[in-house]
């Protein structure tokens, strides 16, 4: 695989956008910024598959407009895994049989946390077990079903309120489940070429990971944390700041596994207290001091495993 870093500075980012105007995403939408950066990194020879989700509904709707300057096809909420394999299989077979010009075409699924971690998990797992090149599954994780009105998914963090897990008198915590670590799930697939986590910070990290994933020689997955002002109850101006705080507090861990080799991409030094991250978000506003302390302690304990993984260069499951 390519070990080259594709984008060394902001100046090297191509000026062309493949995810443009003609959509109605919210101000400060994290997934929209993510979409823009991912499509920039992938370039023009790309097909996007869009499972149902906010990046389906909010990217169009009112006037039959399309923000995509590359081919794009909707798939059902649980269809992302299969759809990408169908596209990749068709391209490879048509090229093999001389029915299409032979060239590299990227197939990128932009699936939300619901589409990838919940309803489409089985199909995603099937996709990761095949050997089609240039298939990338992106989980744009805004940590709930935002499009339907902020319902908990299996990647909603512990202690967050959603409309399905509201904090109340008898159940004061909100969501009591722990966030599913989808990059770990993906990394558990034998011989998977490339798995990574990302967010909007540091700025070039996501784009470089997309480039690496597409050139890894097999299906790959990037789990991207993307703040959602609507569902997190945050200021639109804070989206990138929250991405930064997520990694600085250790709440989100930047790592990649390439051909089985683990690498920690970022170490918060010193790690900021998680209070700095949660205090900006309405979805955590009900948490008591002891809840926040508990959350911080969980992060502390988990980080020991990430450090250990970094030391041995192999993933150690931290749970």
């Amino acid at each position, binding site marked *: 695989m390519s070990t080259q870093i594709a984008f060394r500075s902001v100046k090297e980012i191509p000026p062309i956008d493949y995810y443009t105007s003609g959509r109605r995403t919210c101000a400060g939408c994290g997934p929209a910024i993510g979409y823009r950066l991912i499509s920039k990194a992938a370039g023009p020879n790309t097909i996007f598959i869009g499972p149902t989700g906010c990046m389906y509904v909010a990217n169009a709707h009112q006037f039959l407009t399309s923000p995509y300057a590359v*081919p794009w096809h909707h798939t059902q909420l649980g269809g992302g895994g299969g759809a990408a394999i169908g*596209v990749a299989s068709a391209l490879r*077979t048509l090229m*093999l049989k001389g029915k299409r010009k032979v060239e590299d075409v990227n197939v990128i699924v932009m699936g939300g946390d619901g589409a990838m971690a919940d309803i489409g998990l089985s199909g995603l797992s099937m996709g990761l077990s095949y050997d089609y090149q240039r298939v990338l599954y992106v989980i744009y994780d805004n940590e709930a079903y935002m499009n339907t009105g902020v319902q908990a998914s299996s990647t909603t963090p512990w202690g967050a309120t959603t409309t399905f897990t509201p904090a109340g008198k008898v159940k004061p915590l909100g969501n009591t489940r722990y966030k599913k670590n989808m990059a770990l799930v993906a990394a558990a697939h034998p011989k998977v070429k490339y798995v990574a986590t990302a967010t909007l910070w540091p700025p070039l990290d996501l784009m470089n990971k997309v480039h690496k994933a597409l050139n890894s020689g097999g299906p790959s997955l990037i789990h991207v944390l993307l703040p959602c002002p609507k569902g997190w109850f945050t200021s639109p101006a804070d989206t990138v700041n929250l991405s930064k705080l997520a990694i600085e507090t250790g709440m989100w861990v930047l790592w990649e596994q390439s051909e089985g080799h683990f690498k920690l991409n970022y170490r918060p030094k010193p790690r900021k207290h998680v209070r700095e991250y949660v205090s900006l978000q309405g979805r955590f506003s009900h948490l008591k001091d002891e809840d926040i302390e508990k959350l911080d302690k969980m992060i502390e304990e988990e980080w020991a495993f990430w450090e250990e993984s970094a030391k041995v260069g192999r993933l150690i499951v931290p749970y």
Partner: protein
Amino acid sequence: MDSEVIRMSAIKPMPPVTIEKPKAKVWNGARAIAEAVKIADVDVIAAYPIRPYTGIMNAIATMLANGEFTADIIVADSEHSQFEIVKHASAVGARTFVGSSGVGLAFAAEAVIVTALSQVPVVSAIGTRALDDPGNFGMEWSDALMFRDFGWLISWAKTVQEAHDMTVVAYRVAEDRRVLLPHFIALDGAAITHVATPIIPTTKEQATNFLPPYRPPYKIDPAEGPITKAQHIAPSLIGPEQRKAIDVAMKRAKEVIVEAWKDFAKYTGREYPPFIETTGMEDADFALVGMGAYMKDIELVAERFRKRGLKVGTVRLRYVRPFPAEDLLKVLDGVKAAGVIEFGYSFGSPYGTGSLYHEVATTLYEANSKPELLDFLFLGGREPTVEHFTRVAEMVTDSVHKKPQKKAYWLTLRGEDI
């Protein structure tokens, strides 16, 4: 004289004149469909096991493992993925094949429906099977007929030969620019899928001449430009118009089906009536209406009744969608009584009648002279025999003498048919 004898002996005997007959093969329905997929130059196939359709994929996988043709077979994680795989492969420009049975189709329902509503010409086999619960390998039509309402073309095979031929024709009809709809080929579970009979295979050359390459009007491919497909819409924008487009495609399919079978006969010499196959309907007083493999038995019963002096004919539907109402009306208008023989039901339906009955009854509403119409339901997979169909013919012919008390009869049921 001598010279004459010598001359005679110099004449070499003529080799016996042989008319080259196409070689018959003994194949079961599963193999026959797989062989049709091979000669149809299919590119992408998605498989997931469920009886009784599985044999088709087993046969295809064996052929691919032995290099008999070039295609990609994907072993999916579920029926839902199966149908998503072929839908998207087809949208990119690949010719695809898929299939399922019973609750497998129910699991795939969402993906099955969007395949039609996004007008992708996937071809799928259905080995018809009773729906769970309880798990039941028996034959029912409820799995296939569940998808009557969403824009899939649905044809029904009577024999292994017809199943083989229908597969190649299905691609031609589905991929026609006037249609562009997916196509189910329903095979009665076990009765077609697992029964081996001699058949004449279509040759690769015949298939290539008959079936042009798949060329969709546009492809999801960067080489074709930035096409956005199935983008979310506001219902008021193009909601009804998009549905009408599918309606028109289904209506146009009728002429395309007629053309395709005519052409198929030209290339293979095998002739089929496009929509309705009848026996003895020219002067029939009574009609037995049905579909699929059991029509062979029903035709036998009708013939026996004719020998007894009762003018019984049979009507076999080859397509459920588009439903050939005009053709059916023509043959049934004027008969005294008709019986619908079927394996699909809708609980709580009008008069407790089956899915096919509703279609036939709606058709006959336009008849000048409406026959007495009875329904015979064979549900839950218990296999009917010639005796059951004989009872059907008796009840239909008797119905003109004595007005029946009810419309629907469960003849394989043990106990009281209340």
